Structure formats: structure tokens, C-alpha cells
């Protein structure tokens, strides 16, 4: 940050700090410095960024969104729209809430070239161009200029600099997640919330108490001696009551169906945030009341503050917020603020009482208040104007539970319709009504007891809906009483004060004035939801908590309707801003590796991420791995192949249903290749299934299809054929699997089997054997040939996978055995013309398109997808999978390359392509339109450089060993 002199540094660094206050939260023993705007400032432990700076006389914290007017403190808490700052690499930090830390670097956001002299403040002079709907009206045409508009507008938008990494300094993760299942969660730890938490815990409930601020107590913290005594008693109660988990500096973001409640914990060690996903049996909302700003000319000048901001600064942080104050009050809290100011040595030059017709007409000043005009035209010099004109109930969490708040003109605020809350959601404290501390505590206690009762009832209900062990029910305690009586918490009368005699700022985050809202209504946006969107009022960082009710009141005034008629806007989650990092949380993606992975890593395997699996792509030279398989013998770790154990007399019926081909006559000891389609005829999966015994089969699936096929089998068994006797057990990771492939594979397998005859006569192609391999019993071997070579697939109990792998390498040394990876396997199968489901087929490829006509048995009684395949065979008009031979043998077109016909129309695409080390030329599989699928047809390949190349449809999918001699050898 350029060190430009801003507002001059305070000559005495803590000039505005008061002597010790009884309720102060700063620790004067622990002082340190941090940086604001390039200068060093002192702070005490417990100071927020805002309080520490205010103690040094700083009055300007930011520039406003649209007109870049100087902004100071308004609420001095999390919501304060005027002090959103950049802290180190973290943007959009709430300076009124974030605690100052030694050495932290705090900068203003979005000011250029500096906070004191901001060029964008010129927007204020051009105000008529930035009226409501300005962006909609101005930047819509010509459309060709939008990229330019966008670049310019971005420079005027709010927002700091986003951190480059999701890790906090020191490499620790910045974000975390956890689950919680409390009986009762209390949102808000003022007197009622604390009382509710304690009462619920005493009734036996597990309680989570969530408080947005750094300490418990709500408004008691900045109150008088009686409040501070009550505060201490309540805090002691929380400490002494087991079963309450207290989360401070945490906020409930939202309430979703069945009380799924999201809480974000902030400020954990290293600045980390944690998202708590809680399933709550009873949610108690004790959000208290928020103070509402007053709308009049100059209400955003630094030095105009809410009474709660002043009381926080004076009583919590021992900061004098000004020297000469005017107080506009409509309630006892405003009166108390005037007293607090007096005790803090601030000269209260005038108290304007709104209950007796008093009003503030306008404030004067630019970078700070200099004077105020009150009702009757009297002008008073001052540097602080305090307003205390009313309260807003933060009903968000209740409206998220479907509750519609009603406007109550007697107390000038929207109130929740408590009687209509769902049984799992309750409210207590200021959000319900007003009362003395004792009344709030009594209401909280009764609510907490009832919340525990309701949680207990729900737990019982859940238990009775779940299956029970025998005898357990008798031991249960008797149910609790139906419901406890909750006392009334009646709201106190309060004058309705929203806008004075002049126009002023309504939304401090978005720079929307009451005049803008009048304009929007005049332009036809008479409904509050429309006026809100048109003007963007309530859509800034404060998200309507400070300004919504004023917006409603002003739209009501402009339309001549009542506030109740005007209604309110809809509250949606999140209640408070949340970082995307906290929502994403820590990565919990599982990685699966085979028992042979340590060997692969030691021997230079290049890893391939295949779904959840990490597999060796190759060991340095895939082409020579291919040649080793074709000429000698290779071994590949195919553990991720899906394996499903099927037992029972009705397995053949299941296989006949799931596969398109016939399964009734599979003898014991034989395996068969099968293809599954979905009901729309699209190829779902493929693999071989072997019959190990009379009622015992082992099915293999593609690696990526293992979970899908298991679920698929269960679905047909459970929902269509519950009478069939089949037991389905996934055994993918119970076995480690190795494919031994190549002309010398029989010799190698011979050396590792103990009790199996592997001669071609005893163990022919497409046969399965069970026996002992490398000293391990219970292995399954099948003789199949995905690579096109003589090959055996060995499935061994997983813990012996590495043992088998090493034994094969050791025993095959003289045979020239080599390990090969997925890449070599892909080349080998492509040479052989074997398709891969999902690579050579897609979400539209039906069986006849995949070249599987010979497998599909339409004369079976039934199989999944049968009707669609019958119609596909009849209509014929579709794509076909073919092998393509490029005219240029060296050309390997990219997979996905389009094929074009004589009319320059797309007629297909390359699905697989590789250079074949065996043939010394490229080999391709492609999907082409059926009329072009005849062998010898020429098609054009559109190359990435725009040119074309010629290719010819081959007669067979296979390019190597067309007769399958090698497989059957």
C-alpha cells in the first residue's frame, strides 16, 4: 500500500481511550501493535480492529459502494457496513467484529488512490447517472461494448483481494467441517438464549449454544451494574451446567428441512473456519434484536452512530466515540446511551426525544459530522450524533422454517408468528417480545425446558420407527409431560420511526437512498420485492438486517400503503456471509490403491487417476510393455476390476435378466462375456461371469461400474423379483487381481499354481478354476483375453496380492516377464478391437450400435432393455462402432475427432486411437453413421488444424489375430 497520508495519525495513539470501565473486554496488560493503512497502531487484547482504531481517533474506515462517500462506524459490530477491510490476504473482513492481532496488516478495500482522496468520489457529483436501475438502463447496448463495460465496472465494484491458497500460514488447512447431532441448538446467547440452554441441559438434553460475538451475554454486556451482575450469574450457570457445548464467534447460517442446521465457526487456531452440519431435534432461536438506523439527510456521515454502537465502544472497549454529542432517542436504551456518554466524559449538548415529537432533520459535514439540525430548525454543533429509534427482530431463521412475520405497529417492528412455528423450532428473548432481564430469563428457561421435552419426544418417535432388539422397550423411562407453560413476553410500545423529514441513505452497503426507492416506485416498482431488486437495496453485505424494515416502510410511504400491506422481503440462507472455503471444507475424497501399490511406486509407475483408484498408467515405456505381452509375457494389476459374488438357485435367472445374452446353459467351470443394457437399450456395463459351483457365480464388471452394477442387481432383485433366491456380495477389494498375458503366460501360471492343471485341454479358453496359487487357497482363475493374447486372470485374497505379484515376477524372470500398465492394456485391446464401455460407447449408444449384434438374444423371455433393442434392430437407423484405417499410417487422430461425410456434415467421431507398436501403424475405433459403416467406405477425419485426412472403414474391429488363434492357443 502506498504510504499516502490519510487522516492524520492521532498525536496520542490512544487519545480516545477511556479509563477502565466496569464491563470492558480489553485486557490492558496485553498491548501490541498492528498496521492500518500502512501505519502502526496500538491495541489491547480484546479490541476489535474498529475499536482499536477508534481508540486512536480514526473515524473513516471505508468509502461507500456507489458514491465513494467516506464511511465511519455505524453499528460497531459484525454488521457494520462501514468497516469492511482487507486483513493480510483475507478480503471482506468485518472490522467491527474481527479481533485485532499483533502484527496484522489491515487495509481499506476498494479505495484508489487512497482513503482520503478517492477519485471515485466523483461519482457523488454525477449522482443523476447512478440512479436506481442505472446499470440496467445504461449498459445494455450496444452489446458489442459489454466486455469494455464489464472491465470498467469491475474496477468500481467492491471486494478485496482473494487469497491464493486455501491454507493458512504454516500450511494448516484454513477450512474444516464436522457433524453434530444435538438435542437442542440455541442460536444466540443473550440472557434468554443462555437461560434456554441451561434449562434444556438441566432437563437432560445435549445442547449446543451458538453466539456470533466473542463472548456470551448479548446486551447485558454493555449495560449497567445490575446487567453486569446478571451477566456474571448467567455465565457462571453455563460453566457449571454439564451438557452445553458453547460455540462463540460462530453463527447459524441457515435452517433447512427437518432442522438441518448449518453453523460456521470462525477464528479457530490459525484463522481457520469450520462448518458444523447439525441435525437438531429442537432449534431455539434467540437472536435478540438489532438496532435500526434512521433515514435523514447526512445519516451516513462519519460520526452518526446507533446507540448500541456507542454503548459497545464506551462500555466494552472503553473508547470515547466523540467529544460533543447530540442524542436522538425514542426508547430507554437511547436514554441510557446519553448517560453512558456523560460518564465517558463526552459532552452531551442535546437530547432530542422522539417520544415527545423530537426529530433530526439533517446532519452536516463531509468527512465527519460538524452539526445537526433538529426539529424546529435548531442547529447544534457536534461531532457525534447518536440515534436510538427502534429495533428489528432478526427473524431469518424462523422464516426459513416457513414462518411469516407480521408487522406490529404498536412496537414498530415485524414479529414472528410464534404460535405457528413448527414443533421443532422455538423462539425466545427479544425476537419474541420485550421484558426485564428476569422476564427474558424466565421465558428462556421455560422455552429451554420445552425444547428438551420436544427433542426427547422426537427421539422416542424415531426409536419406535426403527426396529428394536427384544426386551429393550420395557426399560425405557416414562415419557415427559406433554408441554410446559411458557410465559408471555409482550412487546413494549414504541413509536414508528423510519424516515425523518429529509431523504437519506437506506442501504449503507449499496448506497441506496430513500429518494432512489421513491424513484423506483414512481417507475412502477411498487412491490417491495421488485423495488429491492431494482435498486439493490438490502442486497449488499449487510443482507438486509439493518435496512429491510426501512425499505419496506419507505416503499409503503411512497405507495401510500401501510407497512403491513406492503409486507416484507423473503429471508433465505445464509443468515450471515460465509466463505466459499468454509462451505467446501477440507477435501475428503477417498483414494483407493491396490495391495501392489507399494511395488508400483518403487518401480517407477506413472500414476493414473481412474475414478477413486490410483493405477499405474505405465512404468516408463508403454510401447515396449505392449511388445512384451505380444512376444513373451506381461502382468498387470487389475485389482480395481469390479467383482460380485452371486449365490443361490436363481442366479441364472438374474444373469438372463441383466445381460443381453443367454446364460441358462453355463456349465460349472465356464466363464462367459456379457453385456448389460439399461431399459432404454443403452450399453451400461460389460464383463465376464464365471460359474464356480452349482449355485455359485463370480461376476466381473468394469472398474468404474463396480458400484453401479451391484446396485443395479440389487434393484432388480429387490423391486421386481423379491421372490428370487440370490445373494449378492461385492468382493472387488476382497481379491487382488492380476492378469497374466502373452504367449508364455501358461508357462508362468504353471509355475505358481499348486493344484490346478493349466494345460490347454484341462483349462481351455473361457474356463474358470478355483484352487491354490502361490501357496494361497481360495483363488479364482479365469482364462480370458481382453488383450487378445493367451491370458489368465488370477484373483487371490487381497492380502496376498503383493506376494503373488512378486512371485510372478520372480518365477517369470527367465521368460522375460514385464509388468504393464493401463496404457499398454488400452493399446493391446484396441489392436484386438475390444471396446471399452464409456469410451467407445456413450450415454446414447445402444447395443446394436456397439457392434454387439451377435450377443443380443431377442428371443429370450425378457432382459433389461429388450424392447428398445428389438426396435433398434428393426429401424436400423443409428450409428455403428467400426475400426478405421487411416490412409497415412503415422496419423493418430485425437480421440473425439469428428468424422465428416461428402456433404461436409458430421457423421461420427473417433472414440479410441493409438499408435500400434505391434502393427507399426495407427489403430482407431470410431462411431459412424450406419450408412457409412460398410467395410471399405471412405470417411474424412477433420483434423485440429482444420485440414482433413482420409480413412477407410475396416472389415473387422480387430486388427491383430483376427481368428483368435492366440487366445485359444
Amino acid at each position, binding site marked *: 500500500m502506498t504510504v499516502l497520508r490519510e487522516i492524520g495519525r492521532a498525536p496520542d495513539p490512544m487519545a480516545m481511550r477511556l479509563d477502565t470501565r466496569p464491563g470492558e473486554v480489553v485486557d490492558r496488560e496485553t498491548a501490541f501493535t498492528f498496521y492500518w493503512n500502512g501505519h502502526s497502531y496500538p491495541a489491547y487484547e480484546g479490541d476489535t480492529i474498529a475499536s482499536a482504531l477508534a481508540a486512536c481517533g480514526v473515524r473513516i474506515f471505508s468509502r461507500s459502494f456507489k458514491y465513494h462517500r467516506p464511511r465511519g462506524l455505524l453499528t460497531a459490530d459484525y454488521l457494520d457496513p462501514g468497516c469492511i477491510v482487507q486483513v493480510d490476504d483475507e478480503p471482506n473482513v468485518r472490522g467491527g467484529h474481527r479481533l485485532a492481532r499483533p502484527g496484522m496488516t489491515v487495509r481499506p478495500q476498494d479505495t484508489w488512490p487512497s482513503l482520503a482522496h478517492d477519485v471515485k468520489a466523483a461519482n457523488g457529483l454525477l449522482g443523476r447517472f447512478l440512479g436506481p436501475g442505472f446499470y440496467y438502463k445504461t449498459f445494455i447496448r450496444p452489446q458489442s461494448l459489454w466486455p469494455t463495460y464489464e472491465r470498467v465496472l469491475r474496477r468500481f465494484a467492491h471486494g478485496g483481494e482473494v487469497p491464493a491458497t486455501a491454507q493458512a500460514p504454516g500450511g494448516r488447512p484454513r477450512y474444516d467441517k464436522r457433524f453434530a447431532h444435538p438435542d437442542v441448538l440455541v442460536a444466540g446467547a443473550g440472557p434468554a438464549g443462555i437461560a434456554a440452554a441451561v434449562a434444556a441441559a438441566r432437563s437432560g438434553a445435549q445442547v449446543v449454544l451458538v453466539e456470533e460475538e466473542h463472548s456470551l451475554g448479548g446486551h447485558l454486556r454493555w449495560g449497567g451494574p445490575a446487567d453486569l451482575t446478571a451477566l456474571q450469574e448467567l455465565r457462571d450457570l453455563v460453566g457449571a451446567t454439564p451438557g452445553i457445548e458453547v460455540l462463540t464467534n460462530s453463527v447459524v447460517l441457515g435452517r*433447512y*428441512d*427437518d432442522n*438441518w442446521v448449518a453453523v460456521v465457526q470462525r477464528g479457530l487456531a490459525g484463522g481457520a473456519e469450520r462448518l458444523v452440519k447439525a*441435525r437438531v431435534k429442537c432449534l431455539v432461536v434467540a437472536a435478540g434484536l438489532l438496532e435500526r438506523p434512521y433515514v435523514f439527510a447526512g445519516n451516513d456521515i462519519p460520526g452518526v452512530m446507533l446507540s448500541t454502537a456507542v454503548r459497545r465502544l464506551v462500555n466494552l472497549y472503553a473508547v470515547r466515540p466523540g467529544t460533543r454529542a447530540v442524542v436522538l432517542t425514542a426508547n430507554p436504551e437511547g436514554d441510557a446511551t446519553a448517560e453512558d456518554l456523560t460518564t465517558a466524559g463526552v459532552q452531551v449538548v442535546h437530547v432530542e426525544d422522539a417520544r415527545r415529537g423530537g426529530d433530526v432533520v439533517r446532519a452536516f459535514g463531509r468527512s465527519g459530522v460538524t452539526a445537526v439540525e433538529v426539529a424546529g430548525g435548531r442547529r447544534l454543533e457536534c461531532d457525534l450524533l447518536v440515534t436510538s429509534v427502534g429495533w428489528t427482530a432478526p427473524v431469518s431463521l424462523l422464516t426459513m422454517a416457513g414462518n411469516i412475520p407480521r408487522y406490529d405497529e404498536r412496537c414498530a417492528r415485524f414479529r414472528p408468528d410464534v404460535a405457528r412455528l413448527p414443533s421443532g423450532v422455538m423462539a425466545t428473548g427479544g425476537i419474541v417480545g420485550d421484558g426485564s432481564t428476569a422476564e427474558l430469563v424466565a421465558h428462556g428457561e421455560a422455552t429451554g425446558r420445552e425444547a428438551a421435552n420436544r427433542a426427547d419426544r422426537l427421539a422416542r418417535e*424415531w*426409536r419406535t*420407527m*426403527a*426396529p428394536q432388539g427384544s426386551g429393550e422397550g420395557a426399560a425405557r423411562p416414562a415419557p415427559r409431560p406433554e408441554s410446559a407453560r411458557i410465559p408471555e413476553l409482550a412487546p413494549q410500545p414504541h413509536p414508528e420511526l423510519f424516515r425523518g423529514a429529509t431523504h437519506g441513505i437506506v442501504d449503507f452497503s449499496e448506497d441506496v437512498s430513500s429518494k432512489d426507492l421513491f424513484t423506483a416506485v414512481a417507475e412502477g416498482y411498487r412491490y417491495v420485492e421488485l423495488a429491492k431488486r431494482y435498486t439493490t437495496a438490502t442486497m449488499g453485505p449487510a443482507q438486509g438486517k439493518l435496512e429491510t424494515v426501512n425499505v419496506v416502510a419507505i416503499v409503503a410511504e411512497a405507495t401510500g400503503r401501510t407497512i403491513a400491506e406492503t409486507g416484507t422481503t423473503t429471508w433465505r440462507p445464509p443468515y450471515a456471509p460465509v466463505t466459499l472455503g468454509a462451505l467446501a471444507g477440507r477435501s475428503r475424497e477417498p483414494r483407493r490403491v491396490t495391495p501392489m501399490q507399494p511395488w508400483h511406486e518403487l518401480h517407477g509407475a506413472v500414476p493414473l487417476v481412474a475414478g477413486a483408484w490410483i493405477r499405474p498408467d505405465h512404468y516408463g515405456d508403454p510401447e515396449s510393455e505392449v511388445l512384451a505381452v505380444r512376444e513373451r509375457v506381461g502382468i498387470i494389476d487389475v485389482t480395481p476390476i469390479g467383482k460380485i459374488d452371486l449365490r443361490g438357485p436363481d442366479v441364472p435367472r438374474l444373469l438372463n435378466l441383466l445381460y443381453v445374452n443367454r446364460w441358462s446353459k453355463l456349465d460349472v467351470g465356464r466363464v462367459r462375456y456379457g453385456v448389460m443394457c439399461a*431399459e*432404454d437399450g443403452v450399453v451400461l456395463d460389460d464383463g465376464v461371469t464365471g460359474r464356480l459351483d452349482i449355485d455359485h457365480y463370480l461376476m466381473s464388471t468394469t472398474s468404474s461400474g463396480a458400484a453401479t452394477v451391484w*446396485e443395479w442387481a*440389487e*434393484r432388480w*432383485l*429387490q*423391486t*421386481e423379483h*423379491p421372490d428370487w433366491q440370490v445373494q449378492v456380495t461385492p468382493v472387488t477389494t476382497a481379491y487382488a487381481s492380476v492378469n497374466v498375458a502373452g504367449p508364455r503366460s501358461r508357462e508362468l501360471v504353471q509355475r505358481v499354481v499348486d493344484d490346478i492343471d493349466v494345460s490347454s485341454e484341462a483349462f481351455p479358453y473361457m474356463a474358470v478354476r478355483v484352487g491354490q496359487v502361490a501357496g494361497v487357497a481360495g483363488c479364482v482363475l479365469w482364462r480370458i483375453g481382453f488383450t487378445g493374447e493367451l491370458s489368465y486372470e488370477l484373483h487371490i485374497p487381497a492380502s496376498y496380492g503383493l506376494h503373488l505379484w512378486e512371485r510372478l515376477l520372480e518365477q517369470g524372470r527367465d521368460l522375460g516377464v514385464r509388468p504393464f500398465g493401463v496404457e499398454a492394456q488400452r493399446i493391446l485391446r484396441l489392436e484386438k478391437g475390444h471396446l471399452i464401455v464409456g469410451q467407445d460407447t456413450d450415454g446414447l449408444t445402444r447395443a446394436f450400435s456397439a457392434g454387439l449384434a451377435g450377443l443380443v438374444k431377442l428371443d429370450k*423371455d*425378457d*432382459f433389461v432393455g*429388450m*424392447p*428398445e433393442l428389438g*426396435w433398434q434392430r428393426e429401424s436400423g437407423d443409428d450409428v455403428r462402432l467400426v475400426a478405421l484405417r487411416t490412409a497415412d499410417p503415422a496419423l493418430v487422430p485425437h480421440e473425439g475427432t469428428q468424422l465428416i461425410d461428402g456433404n461436409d456434415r458430421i457423421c461420427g467421431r473417433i472414440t479410441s486411437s493409438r499408435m500400434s507398436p505391434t502393427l507399426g501403424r495407427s489403430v482407431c475405433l470410431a462411431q459412424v453413421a450406419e450408412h457409412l459403416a460398410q467395410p471399405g467406405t471412405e470417411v474424412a477425419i477433420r483434423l485440429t488444424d482444420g485440414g482433413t485426412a482420409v480413412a477407410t472403414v475396416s472389415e473387422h474391429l480387430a486388427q491383430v489375430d483376427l481368428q483368435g488363434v492366440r487366445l485359444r492357443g
Partner: protein
Amino acid sequence: MIVLTCPWCGARDSEEFGYVGELGARRPDPKAATPAQWRSYLYQRANIAGWTSERWYHRMGCRRFLTVERDTTTNEVRSVLDAGGLAEDQ
């Protein structure tokens, strides 16, 4: 995310389950179905605003397919039964 009370496992987050779809017409006879009937079975859904019967799968639990009666407008769940007709006493 709603709570479903699995008849085997008890009250669990719906995150544990897979939503399969609403229960529509039964699977037509594959030998006799016309294309219109078959494609109605494949693709036509009533998408009711209100009480529906649907199929769910307890993927991270008992691995049973379930029939759930749910109000799509309120997410209220009236019953959760084993789709295969297995009952607790079996």
C-alpha cells in the same frame, strides 16, 4: 436435507440414501409393450406437487430399496417401507 426413517436402520439423513424416482406405472410386459407404452414407462413422470410415492435406496446403510411416501411441497414423510416387502418379523 431431510430425515428418512429407514425401517431397518432408523432415522438417518437423506444424504445416506439415493433417490431413485417416483413410483409410476409398473414395468410393461416386454414382449407385448408398444413403443408408446414402453417410453411412457421410461420417461413419463407425474411430478406431483403433494403426496407422492417414491423409491429410495439406502446406499450407505442397509442397501435396501425403500418405498417412501413424501409430500413434495413440505418434505413431510408419511411412511418408509421396504420395497421388496420384507418386514421386521421375517
